[in-house]
Every structure is written in C-alpha cells, then in structure tokens.
C-alpha cells in the first residue's frame, strides 16, 4: 500500500514477523523505520494516516539493536596502534568486516604507544556514522599509556607513563588531542590520576579503570571522580581478595554514587575468563556487564606470528599470546561468538545476552539513541536466529550485510 505522509516524504519500511527486543523482553511486534530512525507506528497511523511503503519479512527471527564493541584493537590484518600513513583505510576495512559479526558501532582501540604514534594516528580517526561502508566509529578508546607496570599485560613497558606535576597536561602531551576520543583506560593508583579522571569526565570522555593494581578504595575514589567503566574485568588487575576486593569490588561497592552504574567489560571468548568467574561477575552485577571483543589484528586471519602495536604475538588456535610467553595479548573472538558464549556460560536469557552487547555499551557511552529499539532511536539492527547466529545487519534501516544462503 502506498504511504500517505503529511509529515515526511521519506519511505517507510515495516519489518514484520519478528520478535523485537524492547523493554528487556522479546516481543512479537513489527518494527517500523523511516529516515534511519525507529518510527512510532501508532503516531504514524493516527497523526499522519500513513503506512509502510515496504515490508521486510523477518521469518520469525529475533531483531535486536546492533552490537557495540567498545574495545577492539584491530582485525583482518589491521592494527589500529600502528602509525601508518593511512590509518583511516585500516579503520574502514575493519568497520566493514565487523558488520558480519553484528557490530554496527565501535571504538577503535589503541594500546600503550609512544607519543609519536598517538600524534600520528589520532588525527586520522574521526567519529562518523556507519552505513553500507561499515560500522560507525563512536570515538577512540585509548588504553594506556597511563597504566601500571605490574599489570601491563601485553602492553610494551618502555612506553608506559606516569603523571608528572602536570596531570591532564601530561595526558594531553602524550595524546596530542582528545577530539574523537570516547574513552581512556588508566590506572587510578598512579599519583595525580584522580584529578585527571575528574578533568576527563568533565570533558565528556568516559574514563575506564584497568591495567592497575589499585585497591578498592582507590577505585572507588576514581568512580567518585566520574570513572564509569572497568577494562576487561579480572584481566590485568589484582585478583579479588576478601579483605580487599580491588577493582573487582566495584561490582558490589556501596560507594558508587546513587543513580550511577559502574559498567565492566568482559571478554567472553571462553579463554580470558573462566566461565565460573564470568558467572560470579554476572550474578553480582548483571546490569553493568558489557561484552567486548578486545580483538587484535589477527582476528579473522589464519594462525601464526603477527605484530600488535610495538610487540610480536603468536596465534595458536583460538588463543593469542605475547610471543614466547603464556601472557594473553588480546582475543580473536568475534562479537557474535562472545554473545553466544556468554549466554551459554552464564545460562542467562537471550534478552540479557543481547543487552550486554548493545544496550549496556550504549548506556556506558551515554548514547541514548543507540543500543535500543525505542521510537526515535537509530535503526541499527541485527537479525538473529534462536541460537543467536547472525542472519543480517542493518544500519539506519538499510541492510548492510546478509548471511549467504
């Protein structure tokens, strides 16, 4: 039926035969899209006397908000921390490839690097919307260099930094600019870091705690100053201790200011975290759990030796180690694999697994029009079967990837 639109001439698409994730429940409802946003069909009917131009039959699939990956270091041979001449080409390549994993928005992540690398790479990566060309870039995630030497993980020690008297000025000297930076991971036990946390939050940058030996007190102080995320919980931090739970204790801390949520990234690839630990975190604080891939350049590539940032790593099966050691250097799991593994390991509901990859990262980054299927939100969508395998990906209502039959 032709639409009858008094408000807009833009075509209207109606997705039928789907179960949409709305209000934390899967509901049998149609999803309406116009001009890249989710439309309220009741308003359309009564106010505009309009209806759909196209109908897309979802054949009973699950329709969820597109996944958002806030920690991804590269993939398909691209390393975001590499200071190449054409960084944006690398970002574009990855952004296009990850559409097949259901990721519609992401934060390209840089590991600890020398100032020269930041100064060269950062100006080349801009926040921009996704589309047929690839997933949207929400801003950079700068993981380091203001982290703990003891918990550097795969980060190169020689490029770690501390805050000298300057605090935020030292940080700006290292990075060059905070334009297009969505998140910074730092260790809050570093002298001078608390004022940096406060200043970063004031500038709208999300602050995450990670690669740190902070105790719970120091972590709580940082949260007080505005920190709202924990980078890959359990990994590169002190283990939970019953008299000092450390950063892990933030999950159940009573010093988190009311109205605020502390989110925490989990790499649910089956390797970085024992399923029992994943379950403990999920059960303690389910609404804060954010699935991340922490994928490295080797994701999507065959096994062997590769370079990540300033170091050499080795891929063996599903594991990626710092070459010559047993230190994990990031994962090669894809986001949809993480969602399925997370659901399987925790026994959580489909809705919870999907929200951990969409709603929660959007809430973390305070993006109200992403990560949900509410009226007015961006129509970044994924279609999945009951086992959470991807069937299609949409950005702004347009199909940008479809599984080959």
């Amino acid at each position, binding site marked *: 039926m032709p639409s009858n639109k008094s408000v807009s001439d833009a075509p209207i698409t109606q997705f039928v035969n789907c179960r949409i994730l709305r209000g934390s429940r899967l509901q049998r409802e*149609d999803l309406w899209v116009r001009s890249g946003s989710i439309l*309220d*069909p*009741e308003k359309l*009917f*009564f106010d*505009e*006397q*309009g*209806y759909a131009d196209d109908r897309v039959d979802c054949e009973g699939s699950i329709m969820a908000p597109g996944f958002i990956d806030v920690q991804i270091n590269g993939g398909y041979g691209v390393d975001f921390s590499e200071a190449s001449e054409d960084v944006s080409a690398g970002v574009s390549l990855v952004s296009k490839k990850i559409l097949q994993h259901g990721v519609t928005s992401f934060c390209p992540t840089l590991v600890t690097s020398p100032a020269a690398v930041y100064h060269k790479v950062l100006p080349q990566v801009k926040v921009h919307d996704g589309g047929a060309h690839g997933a949207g870039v929400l801003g950079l995630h700068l993981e380091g260099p203001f982290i703990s030497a003891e918990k550097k993980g795969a980060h190169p020690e020689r490029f770690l930094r501390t805050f000298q008297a300057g605090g935020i000025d030292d940080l700006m000297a290292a990075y060059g600019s905070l334009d297009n930076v969505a998140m910074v991971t730092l260790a809050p036990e570093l002298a001078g870091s608390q004022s940096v946390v406060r200043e970063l939050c004031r500038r709208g940058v999300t602050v995450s705690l990670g690669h740190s030996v902070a105790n719970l007190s120091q972590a709580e102080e940082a949260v007080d100053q505005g920190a709202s995320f924990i980078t890959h919980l359990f990994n590169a931090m002190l283990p939970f201790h019953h008299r000092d739970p450390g950063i892990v204790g933030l999950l159940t801390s009573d010093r988190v200011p009311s109205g605020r949520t502390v989110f925490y990234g989990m790499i649910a690839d089956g390797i970085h975290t024992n399923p029992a630990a994943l379950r403990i975190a999920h059960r303690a604080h389910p609404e804060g759990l954010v699935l991340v891939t922490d994928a490295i350049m080797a994701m999507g590539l065959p096994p062997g030796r590769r370079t990540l940032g300033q170091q050499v790593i080795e891929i063996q099966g599903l594991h990626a180690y710092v070459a010559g050691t047993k230190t994990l250097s990031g994962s090669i799991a894809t986001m949809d694999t993480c969602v399925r593994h997370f659901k399987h390991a925790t026994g959580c509901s489909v809705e919870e697994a999907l929200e951990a990859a969409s709603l929660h990262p959007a809430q973390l980054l305070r993006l109200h029009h992403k990560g949900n299927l509410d009226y007015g939100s961006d129509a970044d969508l994924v279609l999945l079967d009951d086992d959470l395998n991807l069937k299609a990906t949409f950005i702004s209502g347009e199909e940008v990837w479809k599984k080959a039959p």
Partner: protein
Amino acid sequence: MSPRTMKLIVLNDYEQASEWAAKYIRNKILLFRPGPDRFFTLGLPTGSTPMGCYKKLIEYYEMGQISFQYVKTFNMDEYVGLPRDHPESYHSFMWNQFFKHIDIKAENTHILDGNAADLQAECAAFEEKITAAGGIELFVGGIGPDGHIAFNEPGSSLVSRTRVKTLAKDTIVANARFFDGDLSKVPTMALTVGVGTVMDAKEVLILITGAHKAFALYKAIEEGVNHMWTVSAFQQHPQTVFVCDEDATLELRVKTVKYFKGMMHVHNRLVETLPSVPKKN
C-alpha cells in the same frame, strides 16, 4: 420489508461467544461485498469483553478470509483529557488490539478526540461523519455492569446523540483496574455516541460475557425499556443480536434461556463459513 428480529445467542464460554460474534461480523461484511464505492460501516467498542472477538477477526484476516480495506469504523467513545498515546486511551486500545494487525486504512477509522479544543463541536462533527458515510451497517457494543451502552450512564436520554458525559461512579470503579487500581487516575468525563446514535444503526450486536454482567443483561431484556438501564432501549431496535456466554445468563429465567438455546441450530447458520463469496481485495 427488512427483518425485525431480536436474537439471544448463548454460547458455553467466553471463547465461543467471541468466536461466534467474530464470525457473524465477518459474514456480514462478506455478504455486503464492500468495494471502493461501497464501504461497510462498522461501529466498534473497547474494553475487555470484545478483546476475544477482535483476536478472532484478526485471525480471519490473517487466514485471508476477510479484508478491512473497504471497511469504515466508528468507535463508540473516548476519554476526555487523556493523552492520545496514553496506554489506556481508546485510541491506544484500538491500535494495539485491532488496527495494527489488519489492513484497515487510517483515514477510514474514526475515534472521538477527547482532547479536541471544542468538545461539543467534535461530537457534532462525529455525527456528521456517520451521516456522510451513509449510516452504520452494524454497530458492535458491550454492556456495563450498570447496563449502560457506550458511556450512556443510567439516566441518559434514550434518544441522545454523541455528546460529553460525566462518568458514573460504577463506571469509574469498574475502569480503575486499568489505572493501577487508583480511582483518582481514572478520567471523569468521556465523549460518547448516544443511545439514539446506536439505535440509528441498521443492525446492533451486543456482546455480554461474564457473571458480573448477568444482572444488567436481565434488566436489559427481561424488564422494560428504562433509561436507568440504557441497553434496554434495543428492545425497540429492528435488528438486534445479543451474544452471551452461560455466565452472563445467570440472572435470566430458565425459560428465557431454554427458548433461545432451542433456536441455536437455526442461528448457527449465520456463522457458517461462506462457501463461494468472492473476497474483494
């Protein structure tokens, strides 16, 4: 000479009553053979009673038995002052329970606007729209525990037209369950078609289910025409069908119920699947 009939249809339970009513409506529309120059005008109710009937009509649409493309609808009523997108507004009810599931066009649906700047003018305009559409072929309604039809509360004029009404206490109490059980949240006024408006329809179908409606049904058909029980006005309508479940007949005389049940084999012919009526799509 068109038929002058009163039928009381008694089914065993709510589901069967809903299904019978839905099939009756479906067949009426199909036999009318609606088309681009010939719309079937249908009056519609809200509330919990007709929900089963709407579900069945949606089913028949999904099975391809019926289309609403050439059907015009006129709802009975709407609260005054409730935002149109409030989950309990009758606009929301009709969208969620019926319109969004079928192929009806928005411009063919008519629901009174309880937020109109001039409520009297809105009511007068509604009457004019009904007239312009050629009158209502079939008006489907329910009954309140106080025997009201639409919001024609006890004491309403039996020749009333569409107007603003203050709701009776009984009605507010009955509707509180849709407003978190909080009486203060229930709207106190509504726009409603009048008794006279519904009486003008060519045919009227009243759905009555549940024991709590039994006394009202008794007053409506076994006692006299009385404006304290406004549904009783339909004793003087040329073509009325009352569709009930067993529980709704609990206050009727056994003799009345037996009489009408004895005719079910005749009445059931009205709801048989029509064999060769071509659908106009």
